[in-house]
């Protein structure tokens, strides 16, 4: 789960990382009164959970109250990559001498946290990594040992940071690691960490992505509930019923019981048709769940539905009952192709067929997609 920038900043502040004085505005008047306190020029940052927010126009500067009023009004009426702006974080725009980058994430292959710093932070950080690798340094952390300022200083020295800032920056990096640990993060990131004209340091952005699987522990120390955090309504609904749903722009509904199988289905479909979504059930299939899955994917207009499920841990015959019940309850007449193999496969086929579903019993998804294409080209096939 990705936290909002302002939530991340509150946590950073609690751990002693310097952050700007700020406030979160839900209205233009809120924004004005916050800026009165924090000062001008003011920065207005849309609190939307999407990458590339700055380049999409979601971050603006206002020099005067008048300008702020106009800017805030405009932002509240904007969609950033399809997401409405409901909250704006307002803070004072400090005079920046230099932008650094600091991040902690997980190196999947070694299974260790890794700290990354760069003396050239900002929006082009990934570019810097390619063009000036000498300005980047990284370090694998042994969580059993911990992570100490002297190690952080070592990383900052290898990245070529000016000696004057090493001690204060290494304290910030160590605190960032503490946050990463305590909040069981996938990423904890400051980009940029700025060196101000007066020589001070300030984290002017805060990225904190928490491991969803650890939420049962972390929720106790989270400032806000996870509700309302997912921008897309359908993705939110997917989370509610307990499946992974990714909204896409096509018109073929897709239900799969496994992320890899779902991706492969999408890849194979993608050569010919365009998926409307990616719905992956995980290992918890029941009749009820599949009933809800059908309801979810049918919230958008679809041309056909493609179902690809395996009976390993999942009772797919139960799932099939839910699908067929939904079809009957709602009079679904769309073409539906299903491949369902594994435990209880024969029983599953019978149930699916009773709902008018075209069942493919061969192993290769390719064959089932062929069937789908044939059906769409000739509905009576």
């Amino acid at each position, binding site marked *: 789960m990705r936290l909002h920038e302002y939530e991340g900043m509150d946590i950073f502040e609690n751990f002693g990382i310097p952050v700007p004085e700020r406030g979160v505005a839900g209205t233009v008047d809120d924004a004005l009164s916050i800026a009165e306190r924090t000062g001008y020029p003011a920065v207005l940052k849309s609190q939307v959970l999407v990458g590339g927010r700055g380049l999409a126009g979601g971050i603006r500067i206002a020099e005067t109250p008048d300008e702020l009023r106009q800017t805030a009004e405009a932002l509240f009426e904007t969609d950033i990559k399809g997401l409405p702006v409901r909250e704006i974080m307002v803070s004072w725009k400090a005079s920046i001498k230099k932008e650094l980058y600091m991040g902690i994430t997980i190196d999947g292959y070694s299974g260790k946290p890794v700290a990354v710093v760069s003396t050239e932070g900002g929006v082009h950080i990934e570019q810097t990594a390619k063009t000036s690798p000498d300005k980047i340094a990284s370090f694998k952390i042994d969580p059993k040992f911990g992570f100490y300022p002297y190690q952080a200083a070592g990383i900052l020295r290898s990245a070529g940071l000016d000696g004057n800032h090493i001690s204060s920056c290494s304290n910030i990096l160590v605190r960032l690691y503490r946050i990463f640990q305590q909040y069981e993060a996938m990423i904890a990131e400051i980009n940029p960490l700025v060196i101000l004209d007066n020589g001070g340091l300030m984290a002017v952005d805060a990225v904190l992505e928490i491991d969803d*699987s650890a939420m049962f522990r972390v929720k106790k120390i989270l400032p806000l509930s996870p509700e309302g955090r997912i921008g897309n309504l359908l993705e939110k609904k997917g989370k509610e019923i307990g499946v992974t749903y990714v909204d896409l722009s096509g018109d073929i509904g897709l239900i799969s019981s496994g992320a890899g*199988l779902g*991706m*492969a289905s999408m890849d194979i479909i993608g050569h010919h048709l365009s998926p409307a979504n990616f719905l992956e059930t995980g290992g918890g299939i029941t009749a009820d769940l599949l009933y809800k899955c059908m309801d979810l994917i049918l919230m958008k207009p679809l041309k056909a539905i493609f179902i690809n499920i395996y009976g390993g841990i999942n009772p797919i015959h139960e799932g099939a009952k839910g699908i067929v019940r939904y079809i009957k309850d709602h009079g679904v007449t769309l073409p539906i192709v299903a491949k369902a193999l594994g435990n209880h496969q024969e029983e599953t086929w019978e149930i699916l067929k009773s709902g008018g579903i075209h069942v493919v019993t061969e192993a290769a998804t*390719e064959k089932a997609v062929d069937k789908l294409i044939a059906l769409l080209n000739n509905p009576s096939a």
Partner: protein
Amino acid sequence: MSILLNDDTRVIVQGITGKIGSVQTKWMLQYGTKIVGGVTPGKGGSLVEGLPVFNYVDDAVKETGANASVFFVPAAFVLDAFFETIDAGIEFIVIVPEHVPVHDVMKMRDYAHKKQVMALGPTTPGILVPGKGKMGIMPASLFAPGRVGIISRSGTLSYEFAGILSEIKIGQSTVVGMGADPVVLSNLPKILHMFENDPDTDAVIIVGEVGGEQEEKAAEFIAANMKKPVASYIAGRFSPQGKKMGHAGAIVRGSAGTYEGKTKALMQAGVTVLESPIHVQAWAEKYKLR
């Protein structure tokens, strides 16, 4: 022969009294797996499918001589149970559950490495040796005995590949689910190394996916160490970006993780990259696999 699971493997099922644990135990037994007992704290003394249930892993090991374990334990308790299992002397562990916190997995991986215990998962369907036995949830009907090894990051896609091969009478030596999590307990090269040394495996299929560096590291390993033919499929070519690891991830990995980066690395290592699962048939026929 096979890798990891063989005639000497004596398996306990942890979480054996749960709904999934008990059903899967029945199926594993039906498939011929040597299951010798189970563990569920507080349920010691009961029986599941005629097998003795113990409260603690050390008791189970003492009483049954078990040397392997498969987990159907709720995600929140996996860390503790994993440590307990290693300390009890079990040498091979399959972690089926999904949603194990990744910070826990990092600790588990570190301890397994220190104690030289082999482990698969989390979020793995487990391991299956056609006609011999299985630990985990792979649906038996899709597999056939033969000489092709499969190692997969995705559970369901490993079924897909085995099923496609079985349909044309090409069997599998061992099918290994590596686990689908960002951090898993054993990396690809470790398992490739076992297949390379297994006299009953003639060729290997890697079923990978976008994200992470497993396939790139596998490519390095294959180029340096493997003589057997290897094919690979990478799922997610048209997928929206999966788990986003932020700038830090992108910086650390560079081009690693993308479909293009992975296929390029694998092809340079001499691996046949399959555009679609069904292409595995042509590859298998070319190498006359059986």
